[in-house]
């Protein structure tokens, strides 16, 4: 039974939550006979971090691709900023929707700062402003010292931070009328502990500034520490949706992941801590 989104008491960080920033309505996606995502409903609000959890093959990446417009749903619809995502002009959409895929193969030796500058492709804000934004985005992802190094010679974690800086640069500026959205597929998969926290904190700050953030994670405790909303997927469907307290419950997690979970409290922060 999915927990109804409307009745769930999610934290809203003091924002008026009138209309969701991103809204998936009865979305279906199949490859051949295999349903990757089945009649799924979910919403991402501006000013919130929404974390997508679930075992391998649950359909997390497919859902993110549907949400970012890379895949078109076979039934149902995806709304972004109040209008249909598929009907939005690509170049205009790119100004307020940034996407970080799971891996980005880049075989040409761009310098890190050039990679981050590519994030400014949808904008025409001038070279000086772009350079300024690139600097700040690199600093935010703790990749400033890599700026003059070839991307191809960086380690996996360093490459991931440079790509994150690119995403930050793409939606750096807040637009007055509508909120930006960041969609990230496992942005911390190659990062060490301190950088995992640094990046999640940066995303948390983005949300506090008014962005919507939707990301897939594997680390339940990172989700517990930073999420406003948790979406738990299993076998192509949304198993549960709600606040950290509602969704990160041992019985639910045990059912989805097939492991015995124990919930306690973090001695430092007081946030839920899940161990198995």
């Amino acid at each position, binding site marked *: 039974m999915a927990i109804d989104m409307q009745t769930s008491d999610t934290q809203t960080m003091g924002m008026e939550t009138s209309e969701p920033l991103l809204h998936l309505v009865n979305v279906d996606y199949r490859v051949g006979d295999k349903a990757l995502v089945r009649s799924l409903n979910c919403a991402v609000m501006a000013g919130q971090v929404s974390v997508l959890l679930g075992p391998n093959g649950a359909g997390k990446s497919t859902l993110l691709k549907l949400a970012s417009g890379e895949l078109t749903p076979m039934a149902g619809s995806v709304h972004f900023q109040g209008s249909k995502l598929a009907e939005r002009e690509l*170049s205009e959409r790119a100004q307020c929707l940034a996407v970080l*895929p799971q891996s980005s193969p880049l075989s*040409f030796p761009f310098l890190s700062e050039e990679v981050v500058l590519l994030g400014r*492709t*949808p904008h025409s804000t001038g070279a000086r402003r772009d350079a300024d934004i690139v600097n700040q985005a690199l600093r935010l992802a703790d990749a400033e010292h890599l700026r003059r190094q070839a991307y*191809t010679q960086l380690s996996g974690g360093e490459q991931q931070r440079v790509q994150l800086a690119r995403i930050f640069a793409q939606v750096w500026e807040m637009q007055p009328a509508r909120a930006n959205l960041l969609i990230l597929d496992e942005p911390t998969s190659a990062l060490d502990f301190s950088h995992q926290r640094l990046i999640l904190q940066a995303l948390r700050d983005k949300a506090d500034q008014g962005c919507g953030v939707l990301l897939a994670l594997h680390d339940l405790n990172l989700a517990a520490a930073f999420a406003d909303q948790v979406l738990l997927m299993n076998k192509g469907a949304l198993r549960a949706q709600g606040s950290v307290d509602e969704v990160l419950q041992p019985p639910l997690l045990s059912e989805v992941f097939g492991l015995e979970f124990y919930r306690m409290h973090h001695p430092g922060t007081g946030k839920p801590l899940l161990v198995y």
Partner: protein
Amino acid sequence: MRRLAPKTLFILLGGLLPLSLLCGLMLGPQIILPFELLSSGDASVVSDRLIIEQIRLPRTLMAALVGAALAVAGVMMQGLFRNPLADPSLIGVSSGASAGASFVIVLGAGWLGSHDLLGVSAVALGAFAGAALATYTVYRLAAHGTGTSVATMLLAGIAISALAGALNSFFSFIADNHMLRQISLWQMGSLSGVSWSRLWFAVIVFGCVLVCFPRYSGALNALLLGESEARHLGVNVHRLKIQVIALVAFTVGTAVALTGTIAFVGLVTPHIIRLLIGPNHRALIPASMLAGAILLMLADALSRYILAPAELPIGVVTALLGAPFFLSLLNQQRKNQGGL
């Protein structure tokens, strides 16, 4: 390897361009020095002037144009396929052109005759038609509802190249001795016999096409990140692919039609420039055009000079000139622990 600032490279290439033009005018079976032309009046000066005006100038300028066109076609293909080793011949243009030319040489000569249209012979038209047909077929095979698959396109390119190669061999097999010599000379590429009318044709065609390429630099940069990444950066990838493929097929087809297949320029020039200034297309596209022009002018001058009065096929010269330079750069990069 430390990178050169693009500005430094442009100054360097800007200086080399007139020098190689001068080389192209001076070198040949007979070396003509510029000051010899200034001394007035006797018969040898008049004949030297004729050689320069009617033979060397048009052919050197043609070399520059074709060099620029082949180099920029290489840049575009490597960007589109996101593979630094991609080459216009991958999508079947060169082999298609060869087959088209052989077809006309062997079967068409009888009823087409050797008429020239706008200074472009029937063989050249056959080459162009072959190139366009091959590229179109490859593209149709690789295109599907949601876009083009680069992997399918490469495989289709290989298959079409093999088919065109077989046709080529077949035409060579049924050709007589004279035709065979014509085919093999044409396949090695040649700039001999470039007239002013043919040059003007090339100036107009290449002029129109070459100015289109820099427009794509931003989109190609984004595409290097990956297709979906480029789409998320607002690039219409499908439209970009169609336009770039059409432009490259037209450019290479025309180049092959005018001067035969000249190998190596399209592969090596962008590579060298990329090793020097990095993969940013904003600088890479214009720099490769300049470098391609310089490379082919020098290669043409050498092809006339080395075995004078005989002339070495220019395709041989480009390979002899380009390959060692390319290998030394690769080796240097390997020592510096770089990936391609």
